[in-house]
């Protein structure tokens, strides 16, 4: 496989992981504008652990994810006490602060950046991404998925139905941040050099945008969004900057015409064989008595 192709696929895998990191809070109704900060925490913790303690990436990366998740947990309680726009702003401030702190941390290179010794290749990264996607998919197939969507749709009623809104929001926020941290760590161990300047508000915005592009109603949406963002410009042979211009323009148009994103829940239900949007009353009802006896 050519180095170029490997690079693109690695970027795809990393973006997919970032996408799911951004998807979790959005699914619970929260906008995390500090994603880059958590990616940075993951990247730098993993790089540090593998550089200084010579931990293998397969250990360092999950640990870095946990670290990002813990930071998220610590700030989640005060941050999530804010609502809506204030929450978005608090996460934004958080991301900026993390970036600024790292810029000043000489132990990891400061403004000059930090080289990463341990190197991992596409198969490992793709596997990690696959694990993340599978875990999130499984998670959303449990009652967690229903509860989180309920919280997103109607906090008041979710609360009255016995759902601990606060707990689910904190869980979604922390888990999303941990996943984003893993994404950052994967990035660090492949591109072998990380600098604070990379983990800026543009990165956070970009991730949020391609998650919204794919659609936050289904678990497939983020995958699609990351894929479109990463692969389409490659196919069109766009330069780095035109890719962003096109992406931003496409987003603006999509938000105007179809704010739910590319994949919606209703669409998915209609698409997958056994499910029907139209009632097939007679057929289904006829089949029922046997099932109910069970």
């Amino acid at each position, binding site marked *: 496989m050519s180095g170029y192709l490997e690079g693109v696929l690695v970027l795809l895998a990393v973006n997919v992981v970032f996408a799911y990191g951004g998807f979790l809070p959005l699914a619970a109704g929260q906008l995390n504008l500090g994603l880059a900060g958590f990616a940075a925490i993951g990247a730098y913790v993993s790089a540090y652990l593998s550089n200084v303690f010579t931990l293998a990436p397969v250990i360092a990366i999950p640990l870095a994810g946990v670290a990002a998740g813990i930071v998220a947990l610590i700030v989640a309680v005060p941050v999530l006490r804010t609502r809506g726009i204030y929450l978005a702003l608090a996460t*934004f401030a958080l991301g900026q602060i993390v970036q600024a702190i790292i810029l000043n941390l000489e132990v990891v290179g400061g403004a000059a950046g930090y080289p990463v010794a341990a190197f991992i290749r596409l198969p490992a990264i793709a596997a990690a991404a696959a694990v993340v996607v599978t875990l999130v998919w499984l998670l959303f197939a449990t009652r967690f998925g229903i509860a989180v969507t309920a919280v997103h749709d109607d906090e008041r009623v979710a609360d009255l139905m016995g759902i601990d809104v606060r707990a689910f929001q904190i869980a979604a926020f922390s888990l999303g941040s941990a996943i984003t941290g893993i994404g950052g760590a994967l990035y660090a161990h492949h591109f072998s050099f990380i600098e604070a300047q990379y983990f800026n508000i*543009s990165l956070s915005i970009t991730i949020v*945008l391609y998650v919204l592009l794919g659609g936050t109603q289904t678990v497939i949406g983020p995958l699609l969004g990351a894929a479109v963002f990463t692969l389409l410009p490659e196919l069109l042979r766009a330069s780095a900057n035109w890719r962003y211009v096109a992406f931003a323009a496409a987003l603006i148009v999509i938000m105007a015409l179809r704010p739910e994103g590319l994949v919606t829940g209703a669409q998915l239900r209609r698409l997958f064989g056994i499910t029907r949007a139209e009632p097939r009353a007679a057929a289904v009802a006829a089949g029922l008595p046997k099932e109910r006896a069970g």
Partner: protein
Amino acid sequence: MLGSIYAMVAVALTLSIGVLRFLNFSIPGLFMIGGMTAWASLHGGMPWPLAIGAALVAGALASLLVERFTWRWMRNAQHFVPLVSSMAFLLLFEHLAVIYWGSELRTVPSLFPNADWRIAGLVISLPQLSGLVCSIVLIWALTLVLARTRFGRGLRTIAEDSDTALLLGVDINRIVPVVFLISGLFAALAGVIFALNYRQVQPFMGEMVGLKGISAMIVGGMGNIWGSIAGGLIIGLVEVMSIGYFGADFVDIAIYGLLLLILFIRPTGLFAADFAGQRA
């Protein structure tokens, strides 16, 4: 000085939030457009009044573009859609600037290099003074407009309750573009003042400088003009002080740390009040 720049950006943001209830993330982008257009025009040999004018026009046009594609179509959609689109616009503007002008840091030629005043041991240059005066005058003019004119009353009514405003016959469809126009002009002018004073511009200056206007707005009091002015001055002060005491590297930590603190403790800001400044 920096405080007045932050104040202008904060006022631009506040106009959006207060009247339109939406956090316009494209404003740092308009700040950059103002600054870079001014540089590009001066660089191309334009006399400075025209260069400033070109920058303002560019900012205004960009702002109206944002209006067309965020506000006009999406008012009724989910609440965060305009915010998201404005973020996309920020990216759009930044990368278009890189494509058009390159990503290097550019130096703005110095205007009036010999017109410095020495007052009480401080050196004040003409751009500094005029920038300061300009922002004060404009902000003051804005508050006058808000308080005295029919247009201003319309804005305040919408800010308080857009349904009532409709009932009272305020023409929202005509006012909204004007709000975008004004906030765009303020943002662009702030960029121009920054460019002329600090003499450095680059496509991501919106992120470096303009974004701090958000901190100024929140710290001072979200959605309230006087608050954002106060916030701008406070943030400017915090910046200068943290450079003095901790060094330039800690500025961002201080400014965004303050923002986070305020969001935790008193999200309505230090000077919480309604749009035109009446006590909340």
